């Protein structure tokens, strides 16, 4: 394999994994934009999505399509239940309380998954075949195309949802100004519930589509959450376009770093980027200018 082929190969891998990070970041952004909460349990939704899918399709042996939608439904319900149980009862909580609660929920989900499925790593068959497609000397797994395609579909659906449905518009109104939104008759508390459900659902999708490539175990969530947050901050918190772009950037950096520098330090790359962004430009790449981007989404 020539250097160019190798580079292309790393690029493909980076884009695939970056898509997942981007989706985790989208989940962060949706909740952050309408509630100001950084939901540290976001990575656990990804883990739960993957694990539920494995359980439904390989252990209960449901068909893939049924398993796919049922897993999303289950994790969405878990996200909603989490909001009702832990966020809803709080009266004017401080940032510190919210952080601790989402961290606590995150390790609770992790512990629950360990309790239910044990510590082993699970795999999932790819959606369609394992035969790699070769492109310009490098290869792409068919699953990578699924990942990109499903990410595209999710983004398109989100644009339609936030742009053209009454509920979507109401959620945007809450993001813009909660008091004003409640004054025009929007039930803000219900919208908060919906944002958690929606974020959980998106996380679950990310988990389901990545498992055939990256495998899944109970302990994946926190690292995914931190990396997803790095992506969200690099893209600018609240900027959805930023999340997608920054996802690709960090995914590619990580894959290049693992290939050319050291695979042992691979996981540190996103985190170093996070620290650097916080130090140099906390508003992120697209943050300050396009803070209102969410409203268009």
């Amino acid at each position, binding site marked *: 394999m020539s250097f160019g082929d190798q580079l292309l190969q790393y690029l493909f891998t980076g884009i695939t994994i970056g898509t997942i990070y981007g989706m985790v970041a989208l989940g962060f952004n949706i909740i952050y934009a309408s509630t100001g909460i950084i939901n540290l349990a976001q990575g656990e939704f990804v883990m739960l999505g993957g694990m539920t899918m494995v359980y439904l399709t390989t252990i209960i042996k449901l068909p893939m399509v049924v398993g796919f939608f049922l897993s999303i439904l289950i994790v969405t319900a878990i996200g909603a239940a989490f909001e009702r149980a832990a966020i809803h009862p709080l009266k004017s909580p401080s*940032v510190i309380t919210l952080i*601790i609660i989402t961290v606590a929920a995150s390790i609770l989900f992790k*512990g629950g998954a*360990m*309790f239910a499925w044990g510590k082993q790593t699970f795999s999932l068959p790819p959606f369609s075949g394992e035969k790699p497609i070769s492109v310009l000397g490098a290869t792409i797994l068919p699953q990578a195309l699924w990942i990109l395609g499903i990410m595209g579909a999710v983004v398109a659906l989100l644009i339609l949802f936030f742009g053209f449905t009454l509920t979507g518009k109401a959620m945007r109104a809450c993001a813009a100004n909660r008091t004003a939104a409640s004054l025009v008759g929007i039930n803000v508390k219900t919208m908060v519930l919906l944002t958690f459900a929606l974020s959980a659902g998106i996380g679950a999708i990310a988990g389901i589509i990545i498992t055939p490539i990256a495998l899944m175990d109970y302990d994946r969530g926190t690292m995914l959450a*931190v990396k997803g947050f790095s992506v969200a901050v690099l893209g600018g918190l609240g900027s959805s376009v930023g999340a997608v772009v920054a996802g690709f950037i960090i995914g590619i950096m990580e894959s290049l770093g693992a290939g050319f520098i050291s695979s042992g330090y691979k996981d540190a790359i996103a985190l170093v980027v996070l620290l650097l962004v916080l130090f140099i430009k*906390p508003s992120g790449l697209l943050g300050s200018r396009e803070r209102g981007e969410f409203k268009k989404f």
Partner: protein
Amino acid sequence: MRKNNLLSLLILAGVILVLPLGLGNSYYLSVLVFVGIYSLITIGLSLLMGYAGQISLGQAAFFGLGAYTSGVLSAKFGISPWLALLAAIFVTGGIAFLIGAPALKLKGHYLAMATLAFGYIVFIVFNQASSYTGGPSGFGQIPRFRLGNFLFRTDVHYYYLVWTLVIVVLLVSLNVIHSRVGRALRSIHEGELAANIMGVNTARYKIQIFVLSAVYASMAGSLYAHFITFLNPTPFGFHFSIVLLTMVAVGGMASVWGAIIGAALLTILPEYLRAFHDYDILIYGSTLLVIMIFLPQGLFAGIFSLVKKER
């Protein structure tokens, strides 16, 4: 310092002094040594959380930096443990300043995420820099503390050493709380904007407390390294940062006494709950969640005020 604090401190010192006489068993003493070591960290964390209103999700990393700096310097470079402890304080404090200064100028969750990311980076370095740290399997032969010809060899020696340091740290912390810095921190808690307008440099005080909490954790790390005489990365991961957080939340965030009680409870209880060892994250998770939702002032203050409300 207030009178009742001084009284509590004297009572604590008395209890510490006589406790080993009642406990012949060295196993219990070693548990109490760990309670002391963890108390050092939780006292700092409670200053940070309860007084400065900030949160660190990477306190275990500062603990680890203290332990590894101390361990590597003394075991591999032959530097005396006391000097190694001092060097570790400067290294850890310096790094905490570099992380905290930019993050603390931003909103609350940025420090949380910066410390979380930092914690993971440190953990990865401990695992990867194997020529110094021995990688995942760790390294040993870390020398113990000595004073002249006196070697801190037994658990009793170490018990008194650790708890003396806890008392010193408590004294310093109580003074900080009741000093200008403490008043400024409380004003941040009440309303940062108002404090700023009154001329309180809130960012500077927050950084000072953050660095102080890291220094406490570093000292705890050094004590740990020279007590266990062996280091591997496992005790310094994200999981332990959460355990520390739970200790502080159980004890009540805005109380350095609560921090010690929390550390004691969550160090001693698990010793009796060995059977649940694998599922301890379930216990920590639900404890944290329940306390934050229902008793945000901590277990004791929370129950106390609930009882008072009932009457």
